[in-house]
């Protein structure tokens, strides 16, 4: 028994699926196909790890949905379930889902099939008169990434109609790299990022103020200004046009990632974008990378460290203490510090800090000269496990090889996308 996926869609379902692929293509050049009992998830992450997208199609979205994971029996009775590790190049899959309106009209059904022991994904379109179009795409074996983000603890939550986002997007030119979202309990403003306008004396600075009554839901816990990449926003808009569902935005303070979600019962899309950290946390760190910090995590670390460390200083230490190899998988080694490596990280921090700190900068070397990207916070990443329940209780089992692992277990609740 191999890990496999088989699903069938109608013409209109293909249109939504295709829009999801198009939206994700704005974030990354690679896409994971990740089936589970929750449905088929399409996941991607950008090269600088500052944007993540996941579109989850529930089993009832499809005309037919079938999946299985590979169960490996071992002698010591510890069965491991291996999920499908399928990564496709966006260049291969995107051209297949072109001309979605015409596909919607002309195809009777679309079948997607793959197995972990084959090396390819087969996508077939069935037209009238017995015409069939088949695509075979080779996939790379790669463990999908997922992001841990708790929407429930976000201070600020908005729900908007896609129309509002579309109106906001036309204000900015395609050369605009970053935009800033500023909210108060009474109003909302989207504007060109201040940093950028200062540098280029020819750049137009634009802003749009929208009253809170234009929102379906408007809950602002505190006045906030966050800055993030503009390009990914356009991708999200593309997808929202396909579903007609409102877009929910969850965010906190600068530096903590922002989540944009679209949920229309059959499909759930989540786009997590890193945000620029504010002046104070940047000043305190010699490196330009900063981390998104969950309060619960810092409490945990405080306990382990056994000292009375302030939040700010704690952030400094965590940053420097980037472990060399977080994950056994080669795709994830260049992700820098996550506090979930609790005590081992702390132990290392007391030692040769400078050596470790060089490592945590390795991620920044990927994007030389791109100052703004280096300042973006990194997000929590976890490897996807096919057994969600197991993952939920011990979310960080697959990550760090902590010596005192039991104490590292998180007792908080995180939403895993």
């Amino acid at each position: 028994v191999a890990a496999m996926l088989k699903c069938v869609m109608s013409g209109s379902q293909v249109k939504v699926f295709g829009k999801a692929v198009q939206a994700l293509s704005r974030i990354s050049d690679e896409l994971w196909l990740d089936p589970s009992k929750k449905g088929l998830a399409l996941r991607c992450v950008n090269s600088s790890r500052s944007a993540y997208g996941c579109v989850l199609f529930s089993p009832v979205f499809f005309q037919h949905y079938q999946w299985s994971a590979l169960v490996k029996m071992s002698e010591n009775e510890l069965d491991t379930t291996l999920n499908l590790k399928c990564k496709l190049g966006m260049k291969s899959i995107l051209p297949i889902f072109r001309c979605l309106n015409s596909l919607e009209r002309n195809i009777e059904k679309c079948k997607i099939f793959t197995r972990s022991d084959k090396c390819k994904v087969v996508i077939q379109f069935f037209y009238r008169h017995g015409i069939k179009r088949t695509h075979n795409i080779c996939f790379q074996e790669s463990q999908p990434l997922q992001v841990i983000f708790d929407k429930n603890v976000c201070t600020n939550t908005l729900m908007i109609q896609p129309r509002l986002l579309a109106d906001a997007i036309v204000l900015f030119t395609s050369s605009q790299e970053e935009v800033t979202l500023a909210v108060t309990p009474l109003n909302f403003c989207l504007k060109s990022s201040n940093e950028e306008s200062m540098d280029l004396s020819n750049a137009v600075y634009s802003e749009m103020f929208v009253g809170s009554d234009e929102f379906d839901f408007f809950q602002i816990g505190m006045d906030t200004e966050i800055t993030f990449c503009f390009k990914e926003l356009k991708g999200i808009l593309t997808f929202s046009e396909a579903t007609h569902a409102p877009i929910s935005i969850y965010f906190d303070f600068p530096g903590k990632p922002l989540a944009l979600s679209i949920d229309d019962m059959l499909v759930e899309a989540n786009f997590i974008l890193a945000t620029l950290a504010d002046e104070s946390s940047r000043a305190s760190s010699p490196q330009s990378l900063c981390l998104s910090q969950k309060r619960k995590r810092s409490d945990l670390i405080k306990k382990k460290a056994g000292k009375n460390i302030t939040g700010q200083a704690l952030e400094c230490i965590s940053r420097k203490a980037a472990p060399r190899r977080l994950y056994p998988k080669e795709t994830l080694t260049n992700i820098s510090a996550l506090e979930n490596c609790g005590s081992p990280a702390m132990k290392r921090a007391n030692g040769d800090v400078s050596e470790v700190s060089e490592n945590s900068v390795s991620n920044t070397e990927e994007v030389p000269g791109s100052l703004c990207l280096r300042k973006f916070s990194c997000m929590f990443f976890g490897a996807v496990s096919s057994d969600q329940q197991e993952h939920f209780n011990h979310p960080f089992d697959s990550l760090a090889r902590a010596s005192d692992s039991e104490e590292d277990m998180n007792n908080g609740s995180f939403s895993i996308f």
Partner: protein
Amino acid sequence: MRFRAKIVDGACLNHFTRISNMIAKLAKTCTLRISPDKLNFILCDKLANGGVSMWCELEQENFFNEFQMEGVSAENNEIYLELTSENLSRALKTAQNARALKIKLTNKHFPCLTVSVEMLSMSSSSRIVTHDIPIKVIPRKLWKDLQEPVVPDPDVSIYLPVLKTMKSVVEKMKNISNHLVIEANLDGELNLKIETELVCVTTHFKDLGNPPLASESTHQDRNMEHMAEVHIDIRKLLQFLAGQQVNPTKALCNIVNNKMVHFDLLHEDVSLQYFIPALS
């Protein structure tokens, strides 16, 4: 120096947006001259522009219901600003469903023309969109180069054919040669000619009509069919034609033999003059 103006009429706003789009197609960077009665978009005939110059004029009271300006000084009650034309047209484009549009000169971190739009929205609160367009204030000593060009007496003056037709002809000709001859006579005939070693293509426009001549004395001496011609860079002509999205109310072409061609257009109440020099 101060400038504030407001447009509340939808039709005026659309017209102003169209003019701004046209300017953006004709000149990447241009000068905006603000005076008590008029607004001008100016491109002067510097080498950088290839010798092309443009003078666009509109009466401010045809557009703005509020208009206040204070120039550099009492004797020089004018403001000359340099801006990237596309920045203005893009800002105006976002003002499609505006209740009101305000333009003013501001100095935030650097001098700007601030366009602020109050949008109509579904809810009770309005949406406010603001664009700060960076500008350069042009010092008084450079104003002399930015005055209305003197139009020399043309050898031939003729009404233009439908610009869209002219544009599609010129677009195809551009693929064959960069060098175009535009010639016309006082008998309502205008020709566009290109010539290479292998091929010669001419498009003839007839029955175009000529405006009445300024001076009667030369009228009898002149041969009505004699063509005045000028050799120009085809790309400059194409750029001019591409800027005319809407067919103008009036379109006149003045040719000074072997020197230049002058286009004199009227878009409702906005006048546009465009000068293309002869190829040297």
